[in-house]
């Protein structure tokens, strides 16, 4: 006859669910009690028998394939919960790295002027008030600059072009005021800077097209004024806007 004390605990013991202290105590008891040992052997046999007999039905592989297809059909990719955060982190690092690289290369580069203008352009984009005068109308913008900058210039005709004038603001280079015009073309913003050539001082401006940084840059001089066109729009867009500005000048 099985000992009364242990009878109720035998199942939990064999299922591995008994607290450590009781497990040890019952283990020791089984070594010395033939009745309890025989009973536990019988129960272990039954456990094993159910374990074996219970694994009885195997699904048709075609059925498995059907279920799998149903799941996969819902969405195509298979990114695991583990990989998404890794990927997201990598993307963030990549973007941060690109920004750092850009800033570094611009700062280190001989084109200090371009870097200054790029900073002004980025500052404008990042500003909550990107322009001092909000206008898509060139005839309002030109008079607005009167008395604010020591020169005048002509704004281009944008009709039939993909460009939209967003507004303008006064910008400073070497403490000299100049004009900054902000255009948009599709999702891109382009800044056009106009400064007097003498305001550039020791900063040198190549009359050239540059790229390879995050921004494309176009620069030329006309009638004592230096023009800069800078933005992340395509080279073709920058060229087109440059032509319109040159035509207006």
């Amino acid at each position, binding site marked *: 006859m099985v000992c009364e004390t242990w009878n*109720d605990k035998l199942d939990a013991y064999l299922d591995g669910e008994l607290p450590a202290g009781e497990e040890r105590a019952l283990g020791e008891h089984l070594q010395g009690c033939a009745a309890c040992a025989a009973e536990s052997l019988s*129960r272990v046999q*039954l456990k094993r028998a159910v374990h074996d007999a219970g694994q009885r039905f195997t699904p048709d592989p075609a059925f498995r394939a059907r279920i799998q297809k149903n*799941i996969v059909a819902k969405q195509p*990719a298979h990114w*695991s919960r583990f990989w998404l955060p890794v990927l*997201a982190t990598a993307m963030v690092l990549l973007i941060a790295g690109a920004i750092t690289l850009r800033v570094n290369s611009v700062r280190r580069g001989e084109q200090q002027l371009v870097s200054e203008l790029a900073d002004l352009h980025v500052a404008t984009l990042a500003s909550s008030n990107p322009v001092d005068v909000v206008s898509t109308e060139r005839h309002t913008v030109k008079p607005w600059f009167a008395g604010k900058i020591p020169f005048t210039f002509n704004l281009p005709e944008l009709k039939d072009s993909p460009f939209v004038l967003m507004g303008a603001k006064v910008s400073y280079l070497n403490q000299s005021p100049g004009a900054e015009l902000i255009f948009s073309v599709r*999702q891109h913003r382009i800044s056009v800077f106009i400064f007097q050539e003498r305001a550039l001082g020791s900063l040198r401006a190549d009359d050239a097209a540059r790229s390879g940084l995050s921004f494309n840059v176009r620069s030329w001089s006309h009638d004592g004024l230096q023009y800069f066109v800078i933005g992340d729009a395509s080279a073709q867009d920058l060229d087109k806007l440059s032509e319109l500005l040159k035509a207006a000048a």
Partner: protein
Amino acid sequence: MTAAWFTLVCVSEESLLSGSFEQLAMPHFERLYNFACWLTHDRQEAEDLVQETYAKALKGFSSFQQGTNFRAWIYKILRNAFLTSRTGLKVTATVPLDLEGDEENLPKIRETPESILLQRSDRELVQKALEQLPVAYREVLLLCEVEEMSYQEISATLSIPMGTVMSRLSRARRALRTSVQTAQVQKMQGA
């Protein structure tokens, strides 16, 4: 760039759901089917049940709490689908399956069956005995012995307290033992 990045994150969030669902759910496929067969006693019904389970689980996957037991979650879906199926309703109408854990409604078992000794040739006999057990006993035994779930997992799967898991398991084992014993005697007498 911001817009593109946002799109990328949104798209991957979706594929993330199906990707990890497949990874979490498919390893249980064979076992779920086996369990479904034991519940329904019919392969076609078992297939329907498994299919319904996967459809429901995928649909409700967003409500599955990460860090909790996925196996218990999906077995619970299968079991609930069974209980509300035609076969399930019929089964529980004849033998009550008390979800509240009130064991009084379950069949009474002779308190102390004698120890039995089993042989390999008794496998069929055990299968038959399992088949004839009330579904409440059959499922708890299968979850414990075949799925090797912990009491905690069984408690989550069947939505019954731990104490009830233990008492139901104990009754199920006694019922099975009695049934196997009877079959052994009959087999010996017939031979």
